[in-house]
């Protein structure tokens, strides 16, 4: 049985699991002052992905799902650029050095270079498809 402490003394709840926490009676971590990006303005939210590009800028790709394309922002919320403005981006993910966006307006998957924020290629999908979430799935090479 492990006892979990809710921060700031509001709630203590108990969870029965197979875990044993010898010599550990609970640990509460207090976050530092959190920050909010006042400058960032979004019309909605659908999905976001972190930037694993080679430049390591750590930018976020946020799809609003409202026909406003993709907002490329810094972790502090500063808008860098907007991609596919006017398109409804239903899903967004990244891996393999690219960002993939499901563009419901263009009926296609947009492949983006995260270092330059430029379009690499477009993979068409059958017309009428509604793409929602998408994720990278690696398989063994060979």
């Amino acid at each position, binding site marked *: 049985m*492990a006892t*979990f*402490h*809710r*921060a700031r003394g509001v*709630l203590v709840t108990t*969870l029965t*699991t*197979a*875990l044993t*926490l*010898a*010599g*550990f*009676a*609970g*640990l*509460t*971590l*207090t976050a*530092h002052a*959190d920050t*909010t*990006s006042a400058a*960032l303005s*979004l*019309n*909605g*939210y659908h999905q*976001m992905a*972190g930037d694993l590009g080679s430049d390591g800028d*750590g930018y*976020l790709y946020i799809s609003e799902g409202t026909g406003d394309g993709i907002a490329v922002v810094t*972790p*502090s*919320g500063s808008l860098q650029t907007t991609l596919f403005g006017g398109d409804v981006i239903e*899903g967004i*993910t990244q891996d*393999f050095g*690219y960002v993939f966006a499901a563009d419901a307006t263009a009926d296609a*998957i947009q492949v983006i270079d995260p270092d330059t924020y430029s379009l690499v*290629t477009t*993979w*068409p*999908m*059958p017309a*009428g*498809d*509604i*793409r*929602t*979430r*998408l*994720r*990278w*799935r*690696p*398989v*063994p*090479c060979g």
Partner: protein
Amino acid sequence: MEAGALWVSYNDGSVAPDGAIGDFAIPDDPMASGMSSTFVPDAVQGTYTWTSAPDLSSDSDGTGTLVASDEGNSPETAAVYDAQNSPATTMIQPTATGLSDGSGSSVLPAGRKFALVGSSSDSVSIYNLESSDDFSEPFVLPVSGAPNSVAASGANYGEVAVGTARDVYIYSPAGDLDNVIPISGLVPQGLAWENSNENLLAVTDNNGSYALDTLDTPFATTTSFTITGPNTATVGTTVSLTGQLNYATGVGVADATVDVSIKAPNNFILSYAAYTNSTGGLTITNVPSTTGTYRYTARYVGVQDWDGSFVETSTASATVTATLTAAYTPVAPVRVLDTRNGTGGYNSPVGAGQSISLQVTGQDGVPATGVSAVVLNLTATDPTANGWVVAYPDGQPRPAQGSNVNFTKGETIPNLVTVPVGSNGKIDLYNSAGSVNLVADLQGYYSASGESEYVADGPVRVLDTRNGTGGFTSPVGAAKSIALRVTGQDGVPATGVTAVVLNLTATGPTASGWVVAYPDGQPRPAQGSSVNFTKGETIANLVIVPVGRDGKIDLYNAAGSVNLAADLSGYFAG
């Protein structure tokens, strides 16, 4: 050559009933191939049907786990696929766990092989994909309110962030609730960890106005643990050490329990728990009861990983050498208490939870005033239960923790104790359990006008009758004594030494008995013992023995024969 696939869920009305999953094959070198790919519908469908285009999640570290979940379509909730195979195979469909929908999913980093599925029932469930036994018993992380977003931090971290309408919960890989971050008036619609895994990013909804929040250092990754304190302390005076539990990310810590053990010079180990404050600091206090080196060790046991192994265990130690500001005056051992015969004013065992007060000044060669502490060889005998005895100054509260003699039922066992004296010249002896007879042999006292100061030396073995160390090669016979030279060798001056400090060990006794140490050239004490033993037992005790004029001490054995060993750890010189 295929290197992976980009999975896409879709709904175009051509699949039954409404949702399906397909993929784009991605080549090994996508740039060289121009990143061309063709959509393959229904590549993963398995036996599961979707009522809408499902939410997808997969790990990015190569374990090939793909999680699909319906969003708001009950009762069909989620499915997990092994995407390493082609076609992918269904691993689990955790619909029987009470999840009312599959709103959100995430996959923990490679190697952990847990899938995380969001729920609308005030909890998030985690499934161990390595064991089908766990499919029906998910690891449940409780939250307050329906979770609407989840995110697992990257490789080798495994913290899980869960967003609800009011708060963001941070769970450690062990399932410990590390933090709850209130986001007043905001709804965290989406969560993502920074690449450094230190900060959590949240897109929050404030009545239709969206913002990006940075939740600063919401979890801890590694710890460091230190203890610092003085190098020296004074017997009878509180020594205070400071511990510090740190997280690499600089997160504040509260309520962490730390196991502390204190190893006294007589090898007795006192254990207790300390607690860190809001900055991770903790204080360890102790009152050294005797001279010598104390070792303070604190151990923090952190979180367990998902596989059950501890991932954060930190240990720190510090040593403090306790000395005396007052000078020591040894006396020939004299019995000042024996509850078996009325010596000291008590003629019955000390009961459970009872204490007795013993006058130790103004008699037996101890001055009436100016005495700060006395040194006694305190023996517990005939205990009716397992327990312990603690000695402390009369007129002061009994120590909340600590003991001087620990015994098991029926055992006779001594220990050398240094006890600060109360303002009335008395000490108290408290018995924890059962009843026990107590015997105390006065060895000396500390006072400002004392004749000797302690000098640490060794430890060095000055006697071992098993191998000739000290000049004796055979056990000490019954009612026999040996005279051991202790000055002019092993760092002990030839002159000016009033007493030596020895850890005296009796081993291989052929009968139950006792040994007493006393100055050579003086009569053996009529009463008193230094080490008590039963047949065959090996047992040690710390002793302070006045030295005879010839620089020798005598060791007398009462019964049977016994081998003796003595390790010198210091001396008193005046």
